[in-house]
């Protein structure tokens, strides 16, 4: 009985998509049924949160059925402390995005909602699949609906952005596919956990490195890790609002999830060897991304680049933990720093917790930020930072929401973003102090671009009516000036803002899930010879 949960949750969006496609009558009916149907996966994801047994730990809610026996690929699903919060995040952002889209999408409605359900299924699939073939199928399918979402409902330069997004991630994925095949030939199984237990290539560093980089390319394009991030600003900027929310909120997490679920446990030796590279890429991404943000004049592009910077924390945290993935590396490093191996392992756990927390928080915070940018764009029809000003007096409610999201994003204590940064740097300092110190620069620059660029340019100063010719309301009616957020926009944002506050004040429940899986990962690798 328990096992059916994941199957229903995974294929429910597919059902919703088919319902929309085959029975979708009026636009209104499509929108209503889509929103209602998306509540089912959300409810089931809450059930997963609630039903996960911490005592037992490990993978739960398992499903296992024969699928392609000829190549040992099975239909295996399961979730643990790492995937459950991400599944919840996916379902939550999907529902909110569908709800928000119902308010702003006016043409080709049926196609839009059909694709969105398909997208939700593929993202959930990546988080719950425990078989490489299944994982890869969902991973790749997620490209297709997003490509259409950007290409059809995006803004002016959508065509270019859609193709760039597709090709870049495809090339990364194919590299990953080759790595998966290599792992298969070494272990004889496509099962993700069995393959990790078999420890392929543990004695052959050269091949292990090749496989490692194959996997890393696939994941890094998705994360996106510097220097594989160049598709991101275009895709995020051109995508429709809800598309940007899902891109930043969930799709980027797929890559980071892959690093934790597949790369570290399966190739710990290669991970140790290449950990300095990961750490460097992460730290550079933090600082570089932040600097680029400061130079932006396009509001949405700025938020997009902030994702590059913020996902840098994730890579930094994972990289730091990767450095102690084998018992020998742990002992060596403990010697260097004259620490006990246990203390070092604690730091690794913290680094992983920081990275995973950042994955979740970035989803919520940047999701909210993209919603907010969309709200403004629907009214002003421009994203040029320098054409705004003085909105704080005109749209106080909007100002308030933006302030919370912006401060959460720059890591103000008391809001969600702080804990992720705190854990990441606390963990990374013990293992890679120099790069961690370098990375902290990013925090300062982040404050600069949020306060100086966004808050000051958009909300403070004088309101000048001449700068933007035609304001509209969110329904597209002409308006005298900026109008404040309306009901459905508030309802979209409040769950996210509430989550930022809750996690900011009391992160423990969320950390428990992530910590569980972090400890399991570290225990797993510490038993390796």
């Amino acid at each position, binding site marked *: 009985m328990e096992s059916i949960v994941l199957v229903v949750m995974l294929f429910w969006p597919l059902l919703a998509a088919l319902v929309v496609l085959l029975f979708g009558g009026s636009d209104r009916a499509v929108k209503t049924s889509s929103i209602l149907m998306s509540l089912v996966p959300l409810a089931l994801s809450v059930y997963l949160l609630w039903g996960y047994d911490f005592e037992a730990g490990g993978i739960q809610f398992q499903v296992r059925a024969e*699928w*392609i*026996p*000829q*190549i*040992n690929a099975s239909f295996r699903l399961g979730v643990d402390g790492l995937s459950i919060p991400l599944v919840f995040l996916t379902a939550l952002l999907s529902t909110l995005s569908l709800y928000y889209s119902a308010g702003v999408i006016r*043409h*080709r409605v049926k*196609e839009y909602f059909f694709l969105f359900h398909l997208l939700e299924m593929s993202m959930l699939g990546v988080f719950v699949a425990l078989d490489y*073939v299944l994982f*890869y*199928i969902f*991973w*790749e*399918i997620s*490209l*297709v609906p997003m*490509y*259409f979402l950007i*290409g*059809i409902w995006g803004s002016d330069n*959508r*065509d270019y952005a*859609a*193709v760039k997004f*597709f*090709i870049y991630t*495809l*090339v990364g994925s*194919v*590299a990953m*596919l*080759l790595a998966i*095949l*290599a792992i*298969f*030939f070494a272990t*004889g199984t496509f099962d993700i956990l069995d393959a990790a237990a078999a420890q392929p290539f543990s004695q052959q560093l050269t091949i292990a490195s*090749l496989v490692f980089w194959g996997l890393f390319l696939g994941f890094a394009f998705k994360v996106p890790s510097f220097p594989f991030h160049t598709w991101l600003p275009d895709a995020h900027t051109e995508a429709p609002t809800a598309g940007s929310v899902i891109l930043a909120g969930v799709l980027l997490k797929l890559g980071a999830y892959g690093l934790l679920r597949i790369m570290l446990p399966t190739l710990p030796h290669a991970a140790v060897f290449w950990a300095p590279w990961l750490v460097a890429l992460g730290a550079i991404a933090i600082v570089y991304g932040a600097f680029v943000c400061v130079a932006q004049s396009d509001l949405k592009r700025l938020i997009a680049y902030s994702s590059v910077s913020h996902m840098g924390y994730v890579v930094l945290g994972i990289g730091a933990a990767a450095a102690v993935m084998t018992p020998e590396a742990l002992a060596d490093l403990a010697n260097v720093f004259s620490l006990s191996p246990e203390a070092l392992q604690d730091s690794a756990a913290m680094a992983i917790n920081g990275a995973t927390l950042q994955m979740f928080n970035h989803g919520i915070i940047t999701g909210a930020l993209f919603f907010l940018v969309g709200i403004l764009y629907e009214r002003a029809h421009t994203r040029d930072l320098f054409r705004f000003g003085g909105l704080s007096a005109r749209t106080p409610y909007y100002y308030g929401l933006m302030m919370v999201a912006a401060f959460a994003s720059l890591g103000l204590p008391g809001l969600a973003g702080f804990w992720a940064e705190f854990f990441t740097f606390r963990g990374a300092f013990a293992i890679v102090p120099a790069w961690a110190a370098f990375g902290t620069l990013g925090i300062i620059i982040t404050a600069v671009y949020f306060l100086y660029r966004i808050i000051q340019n958009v909300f403070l100063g004088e309101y000048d009516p001449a700068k933007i010719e035609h304001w509209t309301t969110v329904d597209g009616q002409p308006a005298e000036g900026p109008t404040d957020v309306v009901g459905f926009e508030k309802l979209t944002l409040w769950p996210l803002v509430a989550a930022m506050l809750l996690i900011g004040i009391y992160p423990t429940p969320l950390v428990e899930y992530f910590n569980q899986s972090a400890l399991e990962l570290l225990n797993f690798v510490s038993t390796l010879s």
Partner: protein
Amino acid sequence: MNALGLLLPELILLVGALLVFLLDVAYDTDRESGASYGLVSGLFLVVAFLAAFFQMSLEPQQAFMMDIDAFAAFIKMTVFAGMALVALAGGRYMNRRTYNQGEFWTFFLIVSLAMSILAGANNLVLIYITIELLSITSYMLAAFFRDELRSAEAGMKYFLYGSVASAVMLYGLSFIYGAVGSLDLREVAGFFVQPDLTEELRVAMIPATLLALAGFAFKASLAPFYQWAPDTYEGSPTPVTTYLSTASKAAAFAVMARFFVVGLSALDVEWVPILAGLSILTMTMGNLAALRQNNVKRLLAYSSVAHAGYILMGLVAVAANAASGMDGLNGVLLYLFAYLFTNVGAFVSLMAVEETTGSVEMEAFQGLIHRAPWLAGMFTLFLLSLAGIPATGGFLGKFFVFGAAVQHQYYWLVAIALVNAGIAAFYYLRIIRTMYFGSQEDAGSRLELPLGMQATLLICTLATLWIGLYPPQVLDWVNTASQQILTAVLF
């Protein structure tokens, strides 16, 4: 079972061809009866398909210089399925354009017959004769709209290339006969495994292989013998293009596989590098040329060249005892099977657009989603399958072929294929983009599809998804087929 029974698929097709021919002579053809010739041909192909399906489960045996084994039976199934689908979709298309349908469908069945024999032929002369039979009938079909300049050009080009290629191949085969003294592939194989085989003889076989390869490469449109393909594909009647790029290719790869894997298994050190080189050349040339096409028919023609390159990777990476379930040869078969449904679907989609707009230029596809949403959706699926996106048959084919190459540690080959997959995605996306990313206003009027095309598209869609999502049954077939070949091989 007596020997004639083993020829059941071929006999069915022969009867069918003669019947259509006689009907054509006996009755005055008007437009109406012409369409039914297509259906009659389709029916015979379906019966032949069932006969081939029955042959899958037979013990491997030989009759009339042909192997009757699961490998041949599977190729026959693939070929007949493709030809039947073309007949189903193409009936009305041909009907509107020519009065000589009887002739067309007679040759169409003879083409199928030739491919069927080719699937099992294990004798060098039979291989040559069947390739000639297949080629000559195909020349005629390619040039079937003889009053149209394009179609005449298509047939002429095909003929000029083809006749040279087969002459060269015959020359190559004569070398092999000269060395071995037998035309039977198994005796050829046995000759080359002799331990006292001189080095000179081995080396002498390289030019022989290259010459023989010319004929196969021509049929499978491999580089550097693919230049006929774009012009012929573009100019031929679309049903002919469809089978030339799918069924005909499957037959060509079948005979190549038998020739190299069975006949020249002992010389693999010599031919594997040659095929690997051709594979790289073919996929790269095909993809690069496809990038610049604005005519969708021509684009698909180049893409089909590129796919031949991917399929060849499987032959390069053939392994006699692969424990992993990816022995290369089953990848080739799976790829051919999946590619057949995908590409037939793609060409029939094209045919549907051509029927209503009269054009196959990129512009004809502008805003197709508004004119024919289901057609656009299915065409998108076929294009994604061609691009190798998962959940489709095209992905699984690539998965097995790439897998075999990774297993052999041909990392450089796989790396080049990887880059190619990226390039290919780009031009498939161009078509998808054209269909979807336009606005509703400038789309034009709705498109009505004839029933035959609808049915074909639906079958191809379901087959593509079936192979992509739940392939155990297909894998059983291809594994049986490849194992029957590989267990007999003397690697």
